[in-house]
């Protein structure tokens, strides 16, 4: 007790701090050299895509805080949000290294406008009720897990290391969502209805997940990235395994249209993203000279 004051001002690292919060540079000590034959700006754009997906969904999940139906799920949803935030920090840091701009994670998260965000539109959809939240999480985690399993083999050692760590987290996220979707689908009539509506609300944004962008194609060619189209089969199989015991059918809602052929990966979003960014970026932008 008497040493509380000393303990407060000492500045050395302490491993007991909450995970993912105690370090300034998430990629400190990792060799940042872009591998030979890999285009830096392309690698940067690719990392932004993967980082923005995590950042925007992490934000949506954090909106649940203090609103969950049970304390255990309060903790679980915060945990998933925190995992995705950790992935974001590493991916944005890598993006700023690889594209040669030297922008750090905060420069990228807080000082880019909407049209420069590369996330798929699925992530920005408002959370809705727990049914929709779980349906979206199942879709997202199943898709991202399939991709990150393959990214473990990426020619970019930084991306490979980030993916290897994220795989464990995403496996937990997918299982959490799968267990809940089955409970909701096979719970009461009312919960079945809510689960079905949640799934129908997110389904129009599923096809976009598997449509490769030019940057992704080039990253596949360089041995760095994953072709999203190649993930569909695994994704469908996983969803099938969950929907069957949940007593839910695959929705037939048609895919959401694009704008002149463009969507999230091209920086063309839904109307929801602007509001999300206004909230997320407002304070940081009001004090551009500040350090936090």
């Amino acid at each position: 007790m008497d040493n509380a004051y000393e303990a407060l001002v000492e500045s050395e690292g302490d491993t007991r701090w909450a995970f993912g919060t105690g370090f300034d540079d998430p990629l400190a000590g990792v060799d940042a050299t872009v591998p030979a034959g890999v285009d830096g700006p392309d690698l940067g754009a690719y990392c932004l895509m993967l980082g923005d997906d995590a950042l925007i969904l992490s934000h949506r999940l954090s909106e649940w805080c203090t609103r969950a139906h049970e304390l255990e799920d309060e903790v679980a949803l915060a945990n998933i949000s925190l995992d995705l935030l950790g992935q974001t920090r590493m991916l944005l840091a890598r993006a700023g290294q690889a594209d040669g701009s030297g922008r750090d994670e905060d420069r990228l998260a807080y000082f880019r406008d909407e049209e420069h965000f590369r996330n798929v539109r699925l992530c920005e959809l408002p959370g809705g009720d727990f049914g929709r939240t779980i349906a979206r999480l199942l879709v997202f985690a199943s898709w991202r897990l399939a991709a990150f399993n393959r990214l473990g083999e990426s020619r970019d050692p930084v991306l490979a290391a980030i993916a290897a760590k994220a795989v464990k987290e995403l496996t937990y996220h997918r299982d959490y969502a799968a267990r809940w979707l089955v409970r909701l689908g096979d719970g009461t009539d009312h919960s079945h209805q809510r689960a079905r509506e949640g799934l129908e609300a997110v389904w129009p944004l599923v096809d976009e997940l598997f449509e490769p962008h030019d940057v992704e194609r080039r990253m596949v060619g360089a041995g760095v990235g994953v072709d999203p189209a190649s993930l569909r089969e695994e994704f469908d199989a996983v969803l099938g395994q969950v929907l069957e015991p949940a007593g839910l059918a695959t929705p037939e809602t048609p895919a959401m249209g694009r704008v002149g052929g463009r969507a999230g990966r091209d920086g063309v979003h839904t109307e929801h993203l602007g509001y999300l960014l206004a909230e997320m970026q407002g304070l940081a932008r009001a004090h551009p000279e500040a350090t936090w």
Partner: protein
Amino acid sequence: MTATEAVAGGEDELQRHFDATIDHDQRVEPRDWMPDGYRGTLVRQIAQHAHSEIIGMQPEANWITRAPSLRRKAILLAKVQDEAGHGLYLYSATETLGVDRTDLTDKLVEGRQKYSSIFNYPTLNFADIGVIGWLVDGAAIVNQVPLCRCSYGPYARAMIRVCKEESFHQRQGYELLLTMMSGTDEQRRMVQDATDRWWWPSLMMFGPPDGDSPNTRQSMAWGIKRHTNDELRQKFVDMTVPQAETLGVTLPDPGLAWNSERGHHDFGEPDWDEFKRVLHGNGPCNAQRVERRRAAREDGQWVRDAAAAYAAKQADRERGAAV
């Protein structure tokens, strides 16, 4: 002597056994006999503590989506998650006393059980997040460290775990303030403004003055409380003044001065009328805080119903499979 042996001796014998446990500074455990008053006081105190952890998430969660750096966002989210964990351990501790978590939440949302009055104040700028860590978690530590030696075993053990985490929270909050104080003028202004608003409510966290705290004596005799409200408040002020100096903020109390005779700081009297008003539901955020908790509970009813229905179906299916 075991509890079973004591039973043979009847109520007086049980009481003597309990008194001896307290006198020898030993722990009372869930299976031990305890007087009804002791059990009731513990339930009230631990429930109030659990509710405070859960309601206390709200003023901080208010800034998660707006945190101005990803690192601060992660720290804040992890902290709020820790508080949910504290609520969980504490509700579990009440369950060892034979009450149901659901009933306690009912009492909270119906206004029949209280939580710390501090959480009825709003968080208005990002420095509030730092000041809450520094002063509110700081005051919580001063209150709770002695409870690690509380006579009731499950509560004492929960407090050891909770106190460890609260000290990280305090440190992280203070570190945010140090960073902001070395930033822009506007950031320094935020820190001072937040300090001005949270200082007096923090002093109120130790409860009314000793003369106004009728239950303190009995709680101390039972080893549920180890120091009086005024002793703890003094300790907190003495601990905090040098921290404020290092930080470079002014604590908003013109009466604050070192008293070399007492070896403590003198300080002003909190506004106890304001304290009572907040405690009786008329603080700036009471209605909002309880409403949020009530809404989370009601909006989530269908999810809890679904989980229960699914568990029942699963149990049926297992029985069916076994036949």
